[in-house]
């Protein structure tokens, strides 16, 4: 019966992301959450185990179609943890819990659990939990923004790269009560920085736009670098917009702190194994770099337009999530709270 499942919901999600109907991670996160919520209330499942395998099949489907998009997988992975927790509290059993040294020493033989027993209250309690989770997702951006005053002080010069909704909101929140200057790196070849700069300028923030090549030259006068990210990796590194590694190295050179605004759903248990890792990076359309109108030149040169950069954890100062600030070395702890160890590899 499981094989017969049509996955129409996840296929729709995939195509919406592919066709940029959903282009920011917040919308993707909310849509994924709603997808699972529908699956729980309307799907054909009896036990927690059924439900978990339904979700896992969707994750597998999603990974095979869009391996570089981590947000939906993270959301679903976290919901798997919620299901496990609900099941465990429903039966007052201990479950496998954290995979820890302590557990290794204290485990009993009858501790293992296969989540197959029926729990009549599971559906309603899960829907309650997911409603809470959705509120958490919806308020995450505002929660991050309200921390802005702790990090941005009067008359500081802040540098940011490209466009991030979270960073925009963060800066605008601080601008309500502080006066500071923002330097926006334009982020070629997509130039999302231009839109960011115009949005900030509209909120009366003193904004300067610079080309990517001017980052090092400008860095000496910057007080803080504040950026968003695509994914936070398990070691505290970043998979983020191409060009940020360069900015991070320039900041390191001048010992300028880098704050990364990251929603919890951006935390992924993935590691960067090698720089040639499959599906770590993708190449976007080369038309941005060399337009098709360049005609004869197109035949003579190769054009690459990689979408992502890996930024190692040593270059990041602080992650700011809705729970507050965390150092990169603490990411492993957040991950173990967010996801069940058995779900980290899917």
């Amino acid at each position: 019966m499981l094989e017969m499942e049509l996955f129409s919901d996840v296929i729709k999600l995939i195509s919406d992301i592919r066709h940029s109907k959903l282009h920011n991670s917040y919308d993707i996160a909310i849509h994924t959450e709603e997808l699972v919520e529908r699956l729980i209330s309307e799907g054909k499942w009896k036990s927690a185990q059924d439900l978990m395998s339904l979700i896992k099949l969707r994750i597998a489907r999603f990974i095979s179609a869009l391996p570089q998009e981590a947000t939906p997988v993270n959301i679903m992975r976290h919901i798997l943890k919620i299901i496990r927790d609900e099941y465990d509290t429903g039966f007052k059993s201990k479950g496998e819990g954290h995979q820890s040294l302590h557990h290794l020493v204290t485990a009993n033989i009858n501790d293992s659990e296969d989540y197959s027993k029926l729990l009549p209250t599971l559906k309603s309690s899960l829907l309650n939990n997911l409603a809470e989770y959705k509120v958490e997702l919806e308020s995450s951006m505002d929660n991050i923004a309200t921390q802005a005053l702790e990090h941005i002080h009067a008359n500081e010069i802040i540098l940011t790269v490209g466009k991030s909704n979270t960073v925009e909101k963060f800066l605008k929140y601080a601008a309500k009560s502080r006066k500071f200057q923002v330097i926006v790196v334009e982020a070629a070849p997509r130039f999302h920085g231009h839109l960011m700069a115009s949005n900030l300028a509209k909120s009366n923030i003193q904004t300067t736009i610079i080309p990517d090549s001017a980052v090092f030259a400008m860095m000496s006068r910057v007080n803080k670098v504040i950026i968003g990210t695509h994914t936070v990796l398990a070691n505290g590194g970043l998979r983020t917009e191409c060009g940020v590694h360069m900015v991070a190295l320039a900041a390191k050179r001048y010992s300028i702190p880098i704050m990364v605004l990251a929603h919890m759903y951006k935390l992924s248990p993935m590691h960067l194994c090698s720089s040639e890792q499959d599906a770590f990076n993708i190449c976007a359309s080369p038309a941005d770099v060399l337009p098709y109108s360049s005609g004869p030149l197109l035949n003579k040169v190769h054009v690459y337009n990689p979408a992502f950069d890996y930024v190692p954890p040593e270059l990041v100062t602080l992650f700011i999530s809705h729970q507050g600030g965390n150092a990169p070395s603490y990411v492993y702890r957040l991950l173990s709270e967010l996801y069940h160890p058995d779900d980290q590899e899917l």
Partner: protein
Amino acid sequence: MLNETDIKSYFLNILNEENDVSAGVAAIRTLMKIIKYHDSGTIQGLLEDLKLGMEIMKNTNYPSAAITSGCGLFRRFITLAIKDTYTFAECQNVMLDRGNLFLNKLNASRNKIKKLACQFIVDGSRILTHSRSRVVLHALKEAAEQNRYFEVFVTKSAPDDSGERMYNDLRELKIPCTLIMDAAIGYIMESVDFVMVGAEAVVESGGIVNKIGSYTMALSAKAMNKPFYVLTESVKFSRLFPLNQSDLPDEYKYLPTARSGDLSKEDPLVDYTPPSYITLLFTDLGILTPSAVSDELIKLYL
């Protein structure tokens, strides 16, 4: 009740006959044996007996770091078992049951580690390793079985030349490998992709105690921005917080036979690599950053 020679011969027997068992696991198995044959009828007597067993094993010519951490973990586990039970016989049974479960998990740990580490060994990798580590060998074997093509450089690793054994093991598995001098670590570093070593013990700071020369290798790797990976079972986590090399206990650094003489003239067998030089630790608890190690230890011992 086992006497001193029984304990010693049982322990040495495991290590001599079973090639694939580490000293830490052998120590735990010996302690299990002591529990099984103990007949004083009191917990106090049993604890005394176990303490004696540990001393005996530490005084054999095997790496004391692994034995100490294995025994430490096992002792902790016993104190946790005592809390849950009432009579001695009951307690003895609980200990044996849990002990067996514990050993089974430890035996499974190398398989977990090799799977985690294997994904980092990609086609075309050039890997530098030091001395001989069973778990590194397992991981390399697993990668070779998955038809990955990679090359390994092994240091000769004086004074016991354990690198030569590693080299022969790799040759047997038909993995392309080269034996290099210990002094050539700096020379080879620019041409390798990453370093992968085992550990005798992992200390609370997240640093490791390993065969002498590991620290040199880590320093060199850091200088050339190469990742330094450590593969280790969680049974090797130990409650030690060395700040420098001289903080390491003498029993880690020198063999029992050498300990009676003038230590300043002896060559140490292990060194301490601080956590700042380690990129990641691959353990049966997952892939950990060095800072995660202290968290695990605190959870257990607090």
